[in-house]
């Protein structure tokens, strides 16, 4: 027993079948350790992946998952004739793109501002507060926002102070989308700034001292030292966030939406849920979900490729 345990870090390449088996056998403890993970991978990831075949078949309520009749691309064709799906696709891109355009610069700015704060305690506390929303579920956050944006909530109070008419903010499509974008940015602002804050903390303080000697004010230092120091990280983060363009924020929208704003609020994920699970149109739901996964995968791989070209291997996810 002990001998084989010691033999494991085998530098000598095994030759011959018997030796190879012996070599592998010496790792048996490690393989045993892999088993729970492999079992979970199989049941929770690969078995569902096998079920994707359903996108090309009718669902059979009596037989196994793939025992229904093969129908080829029927459900994909159906999707592209389905005006609600096309609408959901458009909404997804609109919401997600707005979040990207308006939401991307804010954490960068926040990190730059934090970097200028000299009182470390103030900085820490502000940072800790800004993180907090990231750790609260959208069920809770949505309930709060539904409240804040309701007819008798504080935002309508503000509107009335300025002489406006109270409105049901979340009951009107375009306003709903704006609120989704704003609250989405609000939730992730602090969290997304961490990576920039970390990059900024690595900047050599001598650079700032030199700039001061050259007569550069704080704004100039920010522009000429801090920003260039994190520009690489910014580019990488931007490229990577384009990769998740089809994720408009299911948790958020699913909990905030209501029937009055469906035409603007329905996104692919909520549509899959509705068609697939609520209306039990399993094959159609699977097909739309697969469409999203495949397009999303292409986006992620492409953006990762670009990021690795731009920033070197260190900057990619894989």
């Amino acid at each position, binding site marked *: 027993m002990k001998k084989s345990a010691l033999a494991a870090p085998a530098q000598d390449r095994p030759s011959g079948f018997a030796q190879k088996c012996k070599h592998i056998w010496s790792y048996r403890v490690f393989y045993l350790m892999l088993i*729970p993970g492999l079992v979970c991978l199989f049941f*929770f990831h690969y078995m569902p992946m096998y079920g994707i075949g359903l996108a090309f078949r009718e669902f059979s309520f009596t037989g196994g998952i793939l025992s229904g009749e093969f129908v080829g691309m029927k459900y994909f064709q159906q999707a592209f004739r389905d005006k609600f799906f096309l609408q959901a696709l458009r909404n997804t891109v609109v919401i997600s793109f707005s979040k990207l355009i308006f939401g991307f610069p804010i954490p960068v700015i926040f990190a730059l501002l934090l970097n*200028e704060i000299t009182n470390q305690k103030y900085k820490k506390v502000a940072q*800790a507060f800004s993180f907090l929303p990231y750790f609260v579920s959208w*069920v809770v*956050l949505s309930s709060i926002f539904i409240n804040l944006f309701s007819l008798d909530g504080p935002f309508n109070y503000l509107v009335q102070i300025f002489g406006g008419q109270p409105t049901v903010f979340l009951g009107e499509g375009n306003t709903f989308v704006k609120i989704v974008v704003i609250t989405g940015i*609000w939730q992730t602002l602090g969290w997304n700034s*961490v990576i920039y804050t970390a990059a900024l903390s690595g900047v050599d303080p001598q650079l700032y001292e030199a700039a001061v000697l050259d007569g550069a004010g*704080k704004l100039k230092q920010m522009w000429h030292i801090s920003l260039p120091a994190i520009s690489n990280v910014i580019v990488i983060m931007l490229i990577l966030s384009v990769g998740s363009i089809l994720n408009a924020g*299911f948790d958020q929208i699913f909990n905030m939406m209501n029937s009055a704003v469906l035409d603007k609020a329905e996104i692919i994920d909520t549509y899959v849920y509705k068609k697939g699970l609520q209306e039990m149109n399993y094959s159609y739901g699977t097909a739309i979900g697969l469409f999203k996964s495949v397009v999303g995968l292409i986006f992620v791989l492409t953006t990762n490729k670009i990021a690795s070209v731009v920033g070197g291997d260190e900057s990619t996810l894989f």
Partner: protein
Amino acid sequence: MSKKNPNAIRKTRGDAIFGWIVAILVGFIALTALYPFLHVTSVSLSTNDEAFRGGFHFFPIPGKMTIDAYKNLLKAPSVWLGYKNTILVTAGGTFLALVVYTLFAYPLARRDLPGRNVFTFLLVFTMLFNGGIIPTYIAMKQLNLLNTLFVLMCQNIVSAFNIMVIRNFFMSIPTDLEEAARIDGAGHFTTFAQIVLPLSKPVLTTIGLWVGVGHWNSWFAATMYIQDKNKLVLQAVLRNTLILMSNDNASNFFKQAVEGTELGQIQVKSALIMISLIPILVIYPFVYKYFEKGIMIGAVKG
């Protein structure tokens, strides 16, 4: 030279103003992040005339405070049941996940393991592609896991990202330590359990907290897999009562919750939100450092 001095003084004054502007902006952002929570807290503690006053609520007003909403909510069996189930799922799920993660990460941390690339690929591929919700739902149904707390615990039980983070940490442990243990006659598993795991406490705490908060906040799996009222987790109870207000359970819930008090629904709703938030808010100051660390270890690629 003498001309430079007044210049320098003006600059510091400019810097001081700049400093104030920055501090105010940062303070404003921090306050914005905090406001919704201040709002629910103060409304949940307010009497009717305060709670139904329009406008912003920052702090509960002394003299216009009541804790009736909390008192009544704590009498509601569904809240307790939700709490119990959430705690079970969070504790069980985090424990299971850490066991699976560490057991899986350790062999992957060995560069010489035959077949290492295959196992790594099987793992990382799940990051790129998944079955989607419908096939996953059907798979859980076939496994007879619907309406069990176990299926909720198994959410995220193999997370490629988390496992790779732990693997990277394991790889950074000097091999001399492990070799020394083995020379002393310890087997691989003993080395893992008695040398490697204790050394990995920081990373395991971070990941554990991460997974734990995920379970605490998780609601979608419960929405999808659980119909049985006795197995609803807290987030599902919240969703049913606060967001899907139209159904009968919710209105019954609120009828009972405001019974015998002068309260309106808004305080009860806010108190319900607070009840789910309090554990997060209480541990947050102590663990937020770990969260911050979390994103940084994630940024280190293996």
